[in-house]
């Protein structure tokens, strides 16, 4: 039969600690557990911010580019148009300029060969955080020039998190092409300057950057992002000027082959 533990039955475990200790110990225990929980949540926030926002935003931005049926990408080169007599030329006469679209409308893509042959990100109207910059990537400062226009085509983008479209901004060299495509044309800008400014220095967005009251004569492009990385203390600014534009049927030489 069952061997009844008739000898040395272990004393029943006390279901709760002795009364005297319990109040203080319980309070300290609960506070400690709350603090540990808070620490875990803060850690989770860091994971979310540094990893998950990239996962979500990179997918979103790739989808946005894929939905632009006019957008050229290395994976989806334009179906070779019937070979025309000659490839579209690089032109330096006044470029076609589109009107500013409605807020949160994606109207262009950016290619930067320095950041890899497959780098392509959408450019969207506006610089609202949650509806443009944190999801769709690059945002066009409302009221600044449009691509190809005389004046300053200014674009903001994240350098870390949310798909980090401008992550490698510091690698840009003077003369590097920044290639903007719209439905109407290609615009190839070349980097002229990189600088670090305070967040309040909006003069980098002026039609002639940092020169108030000067009438613009050139088409300029400006990128703004955070600096240093993971900090909001300063802004990293890149200026570029328009080198040439090209009809949309062509492909800029900077994007061809293994350039």
């Amino acid at each position, binding site marked *: 039969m069952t061997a009844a533990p008739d000898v040395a039955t272990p004393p029943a475990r006390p279901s709760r600690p002795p009364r005297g200790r319990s109040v203080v110990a319980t309070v300290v225990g609960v506070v400690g557990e709350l603090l540990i929980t808070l620490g875990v949540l803060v850690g*989770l926030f860091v994971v*979310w911010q540094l990893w998950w926002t990239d996962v979500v935003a990179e997918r979103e931005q790739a989808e946005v580019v894929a939905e632009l049926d006019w957008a050229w990408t290395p994976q989806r080169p334009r179906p070779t148009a019937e070979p025309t007599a000659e490839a579209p030329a690089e032109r330096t006469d006044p470029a076609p300029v589109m009107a500013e679209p409605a807020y949160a409308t994606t109207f262009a893509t950016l290619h930067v060969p320095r950041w890899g042959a497959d780098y392509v990100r959408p450019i969207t109207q506006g610089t609202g955080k949650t509806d443009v910059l*944190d999801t769709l990537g690059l945002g066009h400062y409302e009221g600044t020039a449009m691509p190809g226009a005389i004046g300053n085509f200014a674009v903001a983008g994240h350098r870390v998190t949310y798909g980090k479209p401008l992550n490698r901004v510091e690698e840009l060299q003077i003369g590097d092409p920044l290639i903007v495509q719209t439905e109407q044309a290609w615009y190839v800008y070349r980097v002229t300057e990189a600088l670090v400014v305070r967040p309040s220095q909006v003069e980098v967005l002026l039609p002639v950057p940092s020169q108030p009251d000067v009438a613009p004569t050139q088409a300029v492009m400006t990128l703004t992002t955070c600096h240093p990385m993971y900090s909001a203390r300063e802004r990293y600014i890149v200026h570029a000027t328009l080198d040439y534009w090209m009809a949309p049927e062509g492909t800029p030489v900077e994007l061809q082959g293994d350039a």
Partner: protein
Amino acid sequence: MYGWLWRHLPGPAWVRVGILVVAAAVVVAVCFLWAFPALAPLVPFNDITVD
């Protein structure tokens, strides 16, 4: 707190562990999908515009 939770969950230990794993997953999902996106604009390490 967690001790109290453990004592009040039903079932054998593996069921309780399962319940807690599911609860943790729900907490993570709520944080990732709603809580952290709402909190992020208040954490100013990520400003990229000049204004």
